[in-house]
């Protein structure tokens, strides 16, 4: 092509001159000096002559258009970040992207991440559309590829130069928070020290957002700094510190709360005449005070009916105080005494909050155990009520997953639908294989059982939740399909619809696992 450069240049000049003349019009443009592109005289009139030049030089121009090879900046080859997913799984992803649910898409991403495979490149841009709503899931299986694609398509030139850690002191509030959280993940101590250094110069909303970002990698070493935040000018910063400090059970705030808790609850023991000890719980409701408000416990305008403002203060204090404040007596004793006290509701709710925060398995076992016995009617003087069952279900959900599943399996065997339904309203996001099977057996029994129980089951919409939580191996999918086919003719449409969706969802989820070449993966069952 180099030899033709001269010709092409002349052609280009003629074309540009002709086009300029055509834009002006033959009436106004100076009469062309250039001859018609083909030797013959084109036309008598000026318009015709210009038209012939436009046509002829246009084709010459088109035929000669070329861009030199050096003009291309080829995209750098993308290094493979891992093996591509199996073809069947890729086809499934294509289907999910053109109209599957978000949950299934997230599950596909999780499965791909668990099997160590990457999204197929031909679907990357479609997957990029979900970077906003499924950021983490998509990032795990296609993050490197999408970053490469952004660079190659030139969409994000700014991102191209910053693969290293971003500076948390600059940018929009959201960027700063993300960068600070990343810093904190790398080096919690240095991040806190850096924040502390320039803290007073920051604006209130930035202070609030960065203090709540301390949640990442929170440790007892953060307590002194958070304690100073309790006196911050901004209410948002104070609230953030009040939310984080109770998680640090050795902090000053926690010790203050512990003092308040032990002041409110006192157990007095009296030796009985016939041996053994009688315990009584004395409850002193707390008074509101500025120091209490500083620690984040304030009277609520919307205190629950039945409990007054001060009962709510007691609940909040117990919820924020460390469980070791009650170490003087075993958990069971506290809970039994609380259950019999006139302030049962606030105390138990407060303890529930504290157990959930500290994830204390012993306390959780004690709470679930006592409430379970109470609901079973094995504790004298405690009535079997629906609120008690609901509280028991919430307490049981704090147990480690295996224990929760064991407890609910017992309920399956006992066959009391109300109890089972109360428990299934809580619990882990993903069930084990064993529990999935037990759950399906129970569903099979209920759907062939009495009409009332079937209706109760359909009303809770628990089947739809189960479809998401079950571990979907082939057996589970087959069992769900069998339940649907054996459903009695007179079953109501709502239940039939729910069971049909269950069978469909489990089949789809089982198929997705099959397509990744493994029944299910270890990482997946550990999820939740």
């Amino acid at each position: 092509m180099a030899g033709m450069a001269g010709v092409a240049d002349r052609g280009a000049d003629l074309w540009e001159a002709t086009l300029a003349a055509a834009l002006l019009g033959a009436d106004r443009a100076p009469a062309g000096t250039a001859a018609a592109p083909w030797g013959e005289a084109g036309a008598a009139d000026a318009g015709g002559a210009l038209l012939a030049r436009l046509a002829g030089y246009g084709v010459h121009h088109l035929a000669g258009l070329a861009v030199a090879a050096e003009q291309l900046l080829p995209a750098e080859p993308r290094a493979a970040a891992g093996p591509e997913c199996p073809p069947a799984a890729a086809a499934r992803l294509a289907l999910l992207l053109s109209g599957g649910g978000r949950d299934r898409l997230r599950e596909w991403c999780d499965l791909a991440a668990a099997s160590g495979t990457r999204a197929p490149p031909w679907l990357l841009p479609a997957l990029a559309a979900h970077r906003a709503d499924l950021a983490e899931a998509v990032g795990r299986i296609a993050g490197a590829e999408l970053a490469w694609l952004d660079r190659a398509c030139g969409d994000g030139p700014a991102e191209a130069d910053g693969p290293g850690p971003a500076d948390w002191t600059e940018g929009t509030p959201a960027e700063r928070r993300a960068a600070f959280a990343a810093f904190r993940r790398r080096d919690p101590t240095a991040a806190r020290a850096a924040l502390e250094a320039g803290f007073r110069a920051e604006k209130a909303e930035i202070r609030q957002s960065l203090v709540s970002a301390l949640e990442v990698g929170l440790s007892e070493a953060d307590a002194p700094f958070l304690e100073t935040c309790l006196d911050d000018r901004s209410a948002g910063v104070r609230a953030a510190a009040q939310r984080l400090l109770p998680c640090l059970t050795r902090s000053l705030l926690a010790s203050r709360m512990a003092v308040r808790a032990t002041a409110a609850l006192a157990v007095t023991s009296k030796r009985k005449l016939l041996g053994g000890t009688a315990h009584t719980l004395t409850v002193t409701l707390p008074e509101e005070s500025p120091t209490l408000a500083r620690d984040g416990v304030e009277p609520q305008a919307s205190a629950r009916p039945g409990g007054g403002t001060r009962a709510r203060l007691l609940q909040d204090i117990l919820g924020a105080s460390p469980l070791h404040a009650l170490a003087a007596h075993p958990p069971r004793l506290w809970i039994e005494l609380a259950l019999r006290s006139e302030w049962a509701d606030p105390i138990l709710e407060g303890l529930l909050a504290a157990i959930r925060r500290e994830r204390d398995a012993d306390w959780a076992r004690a709470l679930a155990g006592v409430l379970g016995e109470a609901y079973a009617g094995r504790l004298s003087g405690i009535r079997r009520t629906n609120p008690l069952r609901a509280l028991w279900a919430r307490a049981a959900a704090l147990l480690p997953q295996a224990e929760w599943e064991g407890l609910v399996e017992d309920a399956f065997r006992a066959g009391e639908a109300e109890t089972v339904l109360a428990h299934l309203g809580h619990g882990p996001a993903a069930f084990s294989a064993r529990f999935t099977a037990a759950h399906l057996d129970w569903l099979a029994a209920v759907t062939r059982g009495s009409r009332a129980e079937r209706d109760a089951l359909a009303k809770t919409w628990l089947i739809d939740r189960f479809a998401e939580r079950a571990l979907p191996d082939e057996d589970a999918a087959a069992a769900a399909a069998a339940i649907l086919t054996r459903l009695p003719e007179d079953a109501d449409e709502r239940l039939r619809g729910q069971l049909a969706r269950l069978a469909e969802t489990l089949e789809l989820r089982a198929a997705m696992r099959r397509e990744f070449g493994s029944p299910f993966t270890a990482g997946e069952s550990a999820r939740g």
Partner: protein
Amino acid sequence: MSLTAAQILDLAPDASSRKAGQDQAKPAKWAGLGRSGPVIWGEIKGSGAAPYRTVADLSGPASKCTCPSRKFPCKHALGLMLVDAAAPLPEAEPPDWVAAWAKGRASRSAAAETKAREPAKPIDEKAQARRRQAREERVAAALDELDLWLRDLMRRGLASVRGEPYAFWDRMAGRLVDGQAPGLARRVRALPGLVAAGARPGAARPEAALGLGLGRIALLVRAARRLDALEPEQAAAVRAALGYPVTAEEMAARPDHTDAWAVLAHAVDEEDRLTARSVWLVGRRTGALAQVIDYGTAGSPLPPAPAAGQDFSGALAFHPGDPPLRAVFREGRAGPSPTAVLPGAGSVAAGLDGFAATLARAPWTERWPLRLAGVRLGRLADGSALAAGDATGCLPLRAAPHLPALMAVAAGRPVGLFGLHDGFGLDVLALEADGALYAVPAQDARPILMRAA
């Protein structure tokens, strides 16, 4: 043989059908599923009293459903094909209604064949000659009028006509339709779009595009007036560009071109209440390119055609023209493609030389298919467009929603490309990488590719 899920979804006429088709793709919803060779069938409960009976022939692909939907293929047919794609249906004895449909199709195609073979009734040659003469005269008059209009445009200048309303262009196009030159009418109707379009990566500037478009029309007018000076094939090409139909007798006389025709891509254009679908094929043995165009309207759906990534083993017949491109299907079967190599692909310089050679023979050509091998994708140094190139040169890529997907599949490595070139940029339709063919879906504007084979 089976179609992949992506190929099936590409058959869907719109996005809602794609979604609805997937909702039907659940084996639990179906009864009486079965297959016999490429024909699959099943019954599905719809909103009607009786279940709908759906049958599909995957080798077409063609389908029939008793549902009242006007979409074609309907969601049930898509669902049925997707069910089969997920897990092949079991072989079974076809029920009566399936057998009747298959028989009806066979006899219809046989009837069409015999009709094409033997002219049904004696032709009134005199009347035909008279009609032909009348048309020639009308076209000649339309050409004169168009020529006058073009010269007038040139005197006024293109800058001044850019402000004209659509009706200005449409009036001339209407005169050309009346003058029985619909090919020219289409070109004139396309002009206001060129005027209105802003500058886009990989495309000509609006004023240059307008100038070139007018120039092409002028060349066509000029050629049309000198038909007797042209070679017969060239003259036929000019007549086709003017909009003369090719008669059935003419087509019947065209020779078969038998090959394993790889279907590279489908492209769908909406033209004025008409859907024009181009199937792009390339012969594996000869390396010849072919474009099969079918038209569909709201009432009459597009005829079935092999899907991108399949091979059509059989004969095509080319319309007269130089260089030959447009063709029609003759005898043959669609089947899975054995290999995904792009036959006849070459360097960028070779592709551009081919484009220039086409312009030399038919300078009114708007776009011409190019096949490139071993090109890398990237950006132009001035950042104006994405481009593909090798050591001999590079081509800007026409802006399209599918470009990021092409980029992602290429992953910076050398790939094969198939697309349409207009002198300024390449409109990519298919990409070959790592022995797999990826086609740009014809009717899906989302930024995805179809893994075709």
